[in-house]
């Protein structure tokens, strides 16, 4: 098990007061906090060896390049990618998904082809495919859902066909906390030679993820949700697929040579990293990966499943609150969304904030999913390695007070 109290000391912000109360931060699915190590790695970069990378013969540039490439290797190891050149640094998961749509999608998705996504997706894993399908006259289809509101893989196995060119699925829903059966889905997709994309925004930060085991073609996540800085995301792609793709953004670093008339592309991963990279934040993300590995992803996942289950149980005890999604233990991580009979999530959120409790309220960038529950907004509590049960108790206390207040 992990030592939450010890871990909390690594996170300066957790000592902050909010409206006079200790901060209870339950908004980790939106973004996580950062340990001192990560913040220090940024400061160290800027104070000791700040420089542009890849083209310098001077000491700062050499050191910056080294640390930047070491960070790439930290990320590679964290998700067990085969090769560090399969790790493309982007701004965030949204950009990673767009890169796939623009670079792989535009060339490979043809008239009448089908792309499957699930009804659980974040807007970032919906809109790029909607636009691609519009532009290339392809068809965007949604996974079928069973009576419990879960993905119906059996039914999907009858709907997928040779027309299916791509399957893009979230590994874990950022609203429901449900873990999707991506193994089975990817196996099916492979049968039909469909390219697979995993939106791992809510999995890579919280559970052990091994891209070679998952065997996804592409996998995307954001640094800021996994103790890393804002402004850095990752696209993992299999080397041979990335090699066959055209670049996405054009500019410095991604070219091998330019004449007035024409250009040649650089090798992976640089082919996809145009312009001066986000050097400091890449290094910060590398540090975050190392921190998480030190704590142990297995431990973190166990801890969060426990918190998730505890929150489901406790909130379920409140009469007028309803949990969204499947309550079963195995399928759920540390994300719990709920609605109240009559009190709107914003009002809940505002009052909880008065007690120092930070939850997220709204559509969670998953409007279609939230609407499918008959509401436009829900409240969401989401946990991370530094959260503890008594924070969930505070949340439940808070919810009771909110209800009392609006009676």
């Amino acid at each position, binding site marked *: 098990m992990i030592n939450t109290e010890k871990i909390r000391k690594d996170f300066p912000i957790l000592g902050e007061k909010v*409206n006079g109360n200790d901060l209870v931060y339950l908004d980790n699915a939106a973004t996580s906090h950062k340990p001192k190590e990560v913040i220090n790695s940024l400061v160290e970069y800027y104070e000791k060896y700040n420089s542009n990378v890849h083209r310098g013969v001077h000491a700062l540039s050499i050191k910056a390049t080294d640390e930047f490439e070491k960070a790439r290797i930290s990320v590679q190891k964290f998700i067990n990618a085969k090769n560090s050149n399969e790790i493309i640094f982007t701004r965030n998961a949204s950009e990673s998904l767009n890169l796939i749509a623009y670079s792989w999608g535009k060339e490979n998705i043809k008239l009448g082809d089908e792309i499957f996504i699930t009804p659980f997706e974040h807007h970032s894993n919906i809109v790029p495919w909607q636009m691609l399908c519009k532009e290339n006259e392809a068809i965007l289809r949604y996974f079928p859902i069973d009576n419990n509101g879960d993905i119906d893989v059996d039914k999907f196995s009858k709907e997928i066909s040779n027309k299916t060119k791509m399957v893009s699925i979230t590994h874990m829903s950022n609203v429901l906390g449900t873990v999707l059966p991506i193994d089975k889905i990817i196996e099916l997709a492979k049968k039909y030679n469909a390219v697979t994309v995993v939106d791992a925004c809510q999995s890579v930060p919280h559970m052990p993820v091994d891209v070679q085991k998952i065997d996804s073609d592409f996998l995307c996540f954001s640094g800021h949700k996994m103790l890393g800085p804002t402004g850095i995301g990752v696209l993992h792609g299999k080397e041979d697929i990335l090699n066959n793709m055209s670049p996405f953004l054009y500019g410095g670093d991604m070219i091998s040579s330019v004449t007035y008339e024409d250009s040649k592309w650089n090798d992976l991963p640089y082919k996809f990293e145009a312009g001066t990279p986000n050097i400091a934040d890449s290094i910060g993300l590398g540090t975050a990966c190392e921190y998480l590995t030190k704590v142990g992803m297995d431990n973190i996942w166990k801890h969060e499943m426990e918190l998730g289950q505890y929150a489901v149980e406790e909130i379920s005890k409140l009469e007028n609150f309803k949990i969204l999604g499947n309550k079963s233990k195995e399928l759920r991580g540390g994300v719990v969304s709920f609605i109240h009979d009559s009190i709107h999530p*914003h*009002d809940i959120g505002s*009052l909880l904030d008065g007690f120092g409790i930070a939850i997220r*309220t*709204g559509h969670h960038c998953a409007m279609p999913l*939230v609407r499918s529950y008959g*509401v*436009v907004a829900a409240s969401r509590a989401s946990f991370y390695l530094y959260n503890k049960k008594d924070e969930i108790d505070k949340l439940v206390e808070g919810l009771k007070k909110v209800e009392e207040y*609006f009676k």
Partner: protein
Amino acid sequence: MRELSDFDEMYQEVIIDHYKNPRNKAKLTNFTEETLSHNPFCGDEIELQLLIEDGVISNVSVDGRGCAISQSSGSLLSETILGKTIDQAKIDNNSMRSLLKDEDLDDKHLDSLADSTMIEGVKKFPVRIKCALLSWSALSDILNNY
């Protein structure tokens, strides 16, 4: 340390009443203007219908989904503008924005806003000001054409 009672200023009784019992909610069959206002960051919606006859707002409907502030504000707005001239509604709209920006307003303007002034308590919760203005933005959309 913030107390629950601090919220009373935002959630005035009148506000809660309008939230639970919204006025002028029934859709109009006879209307001249219709618009949907929507906060993309939270999903709250206000649908506003007006019947404008001879420069006067002779009927109004406000429907929507969202928090106590956005919905009560819509209900209050419907009472404030019903029967007003276009010009007066425009003045009210400006007054409302001034009120929430904490600018000075004279009694004449405040009186014209009527119970809509009760939403003023959100000023202490700046992030909720957008909620309070959602219906007024819908009104702007329509009045800008006049």
